């Protein structure tokens, strides 16, 4: 379509105006409102005991959730990619469920399961307080971040296939050695990407966490709860802006990391990609051309058809 210049400019303007009104101006406004009273005021506002405690709590939750998600996420991805068992698709569907559930519904569900009157309410009698305690917030965060690591690692596992692992086995590597020296390095960027997404969501989760937190300032407030309570309960608008700005900076940092990682993800070792691109083409003894466009191990779809299956269909078509 060759669009006349005026039309193009009109379309461009429409798009940019929409983005400006919806995204840019509000963000500029909050920055302005945050820093209008001076940087000192902002600094003070995020250095109050309640703010520091909220920051620490958010970090604590991240520190617990990330390792848990890494371990279970990688294991789940391996099971989903390598396993052949009935119900695999069902399991895969369950991994996606958290994406489809409203954060508030997550909160309510957890209350129904872990709350005093819930299925596991008995835990309260033995002194383990899940809902309105740290465990509840951790579990809520795990729920909403569960798919990230799995979904980022899965395609990489698919892509690398099993040959490298088999090769390692024939060379004497145990299963653990194979995992540590072959599988893990291969999935590391996908895993890192998943972790970044997990961290971002864990820091930013609000709906699910507010439902299961007692919300006491300085005790059980995360950064997002702090923003909310400052605005609603304390009518401390500037404080809320300041905390939100802090979270926004964290989000921008995440975005930046994601952009950087996105370039690394396609499996190549960071140095090698660049080296491959810049290395002068040496005279090759073989007629084939060396190149970075490795004829990657046949993709999951194309080559996963096992020989016997192929032969079986041949047979049955007789």
């Amino acid at each position: 379509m060759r669009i006349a210049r005026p039309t193009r400019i009109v379309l461009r303007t429409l798009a940019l105006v929409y983005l400006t009104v919806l995204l840019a101006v509000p963000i500029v406004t909050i920055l302005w409102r945050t820093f209008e009273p001076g940087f000192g005021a902002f600094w003070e506002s995020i250095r109050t005991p309640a703010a520091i405690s909220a920051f620490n709590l958010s970090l604590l939750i991240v520190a617990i959730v990330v390792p848990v998600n890494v371990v279970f996420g990688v294991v789940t991805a391996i099971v989903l990619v390598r396993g052949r068992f009935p119900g695999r698709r069902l399991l895969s569907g369950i991994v996606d469920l958290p994406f489809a559930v409203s954060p508030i519904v997550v909160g309510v569900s957890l209350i129904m399961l872990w709350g005093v009157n819930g299925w596991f309410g008995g835990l309260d009698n033995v002194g383990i307080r899940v809902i309105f305690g740290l465990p509840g917030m951790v579990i809520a965060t795990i729920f909403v971040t569960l798919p990230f690591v799995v979904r980022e690692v899965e395609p990489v596992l698919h892509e690398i296939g099993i040959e490298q692992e088999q090769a390692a086995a024939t060379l004497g590597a145990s299963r653990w050695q194979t995992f540590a020296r072959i599988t893990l390095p291969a999935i590391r960027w996908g895993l890192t990407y998943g972790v970044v997404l997990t961290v971002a969501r864990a820091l930013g989760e609000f709906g699910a966490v507010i439902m299961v937190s007692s919300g006491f300032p300085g005790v059980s407030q995360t950064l997002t709860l702090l923003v909310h309570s400052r605005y609603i309960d304390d009518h401390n608008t500037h404080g809320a802006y300041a905390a939100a700005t802090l979270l926004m900076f964290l989000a921008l940092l995440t975005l930046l990391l994601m952009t950087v990682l996105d370039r690394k993800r396609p499996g190549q070792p960071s140095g090698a990609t660049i080296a491959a691109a810049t290395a002068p083409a040496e005279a090759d003894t073989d007629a084939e051309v060396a190149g970075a466009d490795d004829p990657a191990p046949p993709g999951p779809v194309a080559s996963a058809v096992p020989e016997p299956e192929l032969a079986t269909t041949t047979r049955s078509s007789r």
Partner: protein
Amino acid sequence: MTAVVGQGAAGSPAAPARTPQPRSRAGWAGRVNGLTLGVVTLWLSLIVLLPLAALTVASFGDGWSGFWAAVTAPVALAALWTTVLVSAVVAVVNVVVGTLIAWVLVRDEFPGKRFVDALIDLPFALPTIVASIVLLSLYGPNSPIGVELNATRWGLMVALAFVTLPFVVRSVQPVLIEVDRDVEQAAASLGAGNWTTFRRVVLPTLAPAIISGGGLAFARAIGEYGSVVLIGGNIPRETQVASQYIQQQIEIDRPVNAAAVSVALLVISFVTLLVLRWIAARGQEREERAA
């Protein structure tokens, strides 16, 4: 002799088809032991399935009639209606504006395009409560531009449009990049005007991506809480959305009501996602038939 040998049994001059990799089913690939599988299943059940099961059971705590009464209570119904209505409007806005933005980002050139492109992801990265505050700072009380949208449905829409912005843009963009421009030129050469070319040639190609993006935006908007909690105002029968209603019911200790409306909300988003999947599958089928 070699010349003869080259000819296989069935007269094939070249080497036979490459033997496919024997990826064993029972062998290596299937070597995920029962214990690992068990642990994963247990984990997913504990984190995801059991809570949802507990929720569903709780929603029927007062029997089917109790469930029905909870969902059809006027305020609950109003909240659900507001949610669906506002989400639908936002989805439509996204479909139109999102496609426009995607088009501009792919087909247009202007200084700062890459910055704008990066900006699109911001709503995904921003915590929802921050989105709420960000919008309030401009459209809230004491608005610097004199537009106060808080506690109105307009406010809800702005908040939801903010958090769902990337869905359509990001699903249409890659498809638009891949679109075969020759087809457009062919249409133009046949005398089709821009609008006709867009409607008859480009739009059908983009439709699956647009629908999918719009559907995902709708599903997200249905369950949204953080971004509307401050700007929405939570006025029953007016701006209260389902998630706020649920939260309120928990606060006033009506767990059955909260659970029942939660289940209703879950059903709506599952149905949306199932319809999307169905549309995607149908589209793929049609594409395969065409190929």
